[in-house]
């Protein structure tokens, strides 16, 4: 029986949730406000920033004039989407085999895959840098796509494995008894049932790849640099460029925020519900 919640309690819960939500969103809101200020206004006390200074688009104009935003944007799109698609192509068969035809080593393999995420990336930076140098992959979108695929692969496999595990094996068995081949079984039976899970995995992976800053800063120079490098170019130890840095940050996070906004239902559903619920 559902527990009765009083109106007062509901209001308190709503207020707490609203406050927490606002606190979490506040840094982004402040960056947004600063991006519409001049450099001089951006360093004033917070109340002065809000109430006694004007609004301007100058910082966005200056950022666009100095940096090629669209080059960085297209690099971000190619790298994040490319690494996600490549990751899914590898992870779907891997997760399928682990979920439906497990061996006695499956659990260990899953744990080993996860353990690779526990290694600090800087620990393998020099070997990977040298491999990239020798194979001509430094500052290339192909190289970054490969690295980000490998970095996020354990998460993709784990997420898909969890969704696949919730799909009753009997449904797949029934398909096989009806004469479905392995390809048909995966494509026409498994995939439609796992679509919410695959969609949320895909969205999460795109977000992770989009925001990845360690490898994208260390393995690129000018040609393959994505939006993370674009933001980093406005950070300065000598001189105050808070307004331009804020404008660059907003320009970099806007596409992924918009994508997240429109797909939040699918994302939350995929992350909180199982495949067949």
């Amino acid at each position, binding site marked *: 029986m559902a527990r009765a919640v009083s109106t007062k309690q509901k209001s308190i819960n709503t207020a707490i949730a609203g406050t927490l939500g606002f606190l979490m969103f506040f840094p982004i809101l402040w960056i947004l406000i600063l991006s519409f200020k001049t*450099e*001089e206004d951006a*360093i*004033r*006390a917070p109340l002065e920033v809000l109430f006694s200074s004007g609004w301007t688009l100058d910082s966005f104009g200056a950022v666009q004039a*100095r*940096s090629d935003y669209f080059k960085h944007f297209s690099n971000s799109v190619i790298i994040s989407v490319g690494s996600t698609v490549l990751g899914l192509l590898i992870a779907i068969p891997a997760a399928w085999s682990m979920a439906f035809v497990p061996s006695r080593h499956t659990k260990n393999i899953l744990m080993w895959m996860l353990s690779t995420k526990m290694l600090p990336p800087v620990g393998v*930076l*020099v070997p990977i*840098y*040298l491999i990239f*140098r020798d194979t001509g992959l*430094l*500052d290339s979108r192909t190289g970054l796509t490969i690295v980000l695929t490998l970095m996020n692969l354990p998460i993709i496999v784990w997420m898909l494995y969890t969704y696949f595990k919730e799909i009753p094996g009997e449904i797949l068995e029934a398909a096989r008894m009806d004469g479905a081949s392995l390809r048909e079984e995966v494509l026409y039976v498994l995939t439609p049932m796992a679509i919410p899970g695959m969609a949320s995995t895909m969205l999460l992976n795109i977000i992770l790849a989009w925001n990845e800053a360690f490898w994208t*800063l*260390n393995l690129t*120079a*000018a*040609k393959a*640099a994505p939006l993370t*490098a674009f933001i*980093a*170019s*406005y*950070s*300065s*130890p*000598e*001189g*105050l*460029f808070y307004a331009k840095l804020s404008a660059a940050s907003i320009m970099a996070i806007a596409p992924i925020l918009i994508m997240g906004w429109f797909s939040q239902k699918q994302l939350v559903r995929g992350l909180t519900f199982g495949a067949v619920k």
Partner: protein
Amino acid sequence: MNLRKTFASATAMSLIMSAGAFAEEITIATVNNADMIVMQELAPQWEEATGNTINWVVLEENVLRQRTTQDISTNGGSFDIMFIGAYETPIWGANGWLEPLNDFGDDADYDLNDIFQLVRNGLSDSEGNLYALPLYSETSFTYYRTDVFEDKGIAVPEGQPTYEEFAAMAAAAHDPENGIFGTCQRGKAGWGENMAFVGPLVNAFGGRWFDMDWQPQLDSEEWNNAITYYVDLVSNYGPPGASLNGHNENRALFKDGKCATWVDATSAATDVKNPDTSTVADVTDFFKAPKQVTDKGTGWFWSWALAIPASSQSKDTAKDFLKWATSKEYFELVGETKGWVAVPSGTRQSVEADPRRLEAAPFASTIVDAILSVDPADPTLEPVPYTGVQFVAIPEFQGIGNYVGQQISAALAGQQSVEEALANSQTFAVREMTKAGYIK
């Protein structure tokens, strides 16, 4: 007619193709500061004149340092020109990682001797090989508020004050109820942050990083006196949370009228004295960074310069750009297009003596005097085996300096005593120097 047209077209095509074959693309790694932003804005003129193109990779200073170190030490070849400092240049040059630039001395048009000798020395190895060409150089001096000094009846020092006198000025000026702190100094941990102020302070108190046998001296009485003074000064007369403030935070505070004094980089003077970007432009003046038991090494020395990594595949084009970007003509171009106040400071004698520069930036001669009074080869009261004022020009210093910076920042934040901070620093420095083979 058709034959003539065909011949003309073929000639044009071959000219275009040959121009394309010679034109090169170079990649420059740099920081995001005012002088480099100006260079990026003016560089298309060099691109148009030569047909070459530039890819700019702009990074935050610490990221740039890590990224360029990684690339140059692995012979990665990602960059053709790197914007590096006076600390890295001699070390990287001695390792053979940078292209020597001695041949610029033979170019009469370039006039290498016009660049201050001190700056050239700071960018050369111990054998005198030049590895980078400077864009601007800086030392530290004291910014002070003329209006606050006048209101509080504080006498402006005639020459170089002592740190004791400086503390008295900060105490007299300290008026937090009216939003004025006696002094703003760097507290954020890092060898390029708080240690840039602490290094010259320790020199002034007669301290040194190492003795002639490379034994660390961080637990000496001189270090203790200096750090105790620093913690007391900033705790009593500084803004709250000073242990988190670096150059940028203090610059913002000073420009916003919150600080009566600030000992920091001369390169910030242009910004602080600019009425468009500062609320205290008309009421700021300067005097030398204070001394104490000695006046040696009391102002730091730093130079940002352009260097060519040995791994570059386009060395000739990179040299051509380097020549353009540090030439007299470039400084003239900056003066004419961006104003003479915006010309990079402390590099060329002819620029600093130019009447147009002196008229636009009356404080320029103070900066040059301060820079020329520094001697990185003789920075301390007692003899030392190293060069560098606020740093020690050995590869191990980066790690040691960062660790000591963290310890001192923690002492400033009240998380540990000065004695604990220095004892930890000494232990760490001894371990690192032993590991590196300096101490047997």
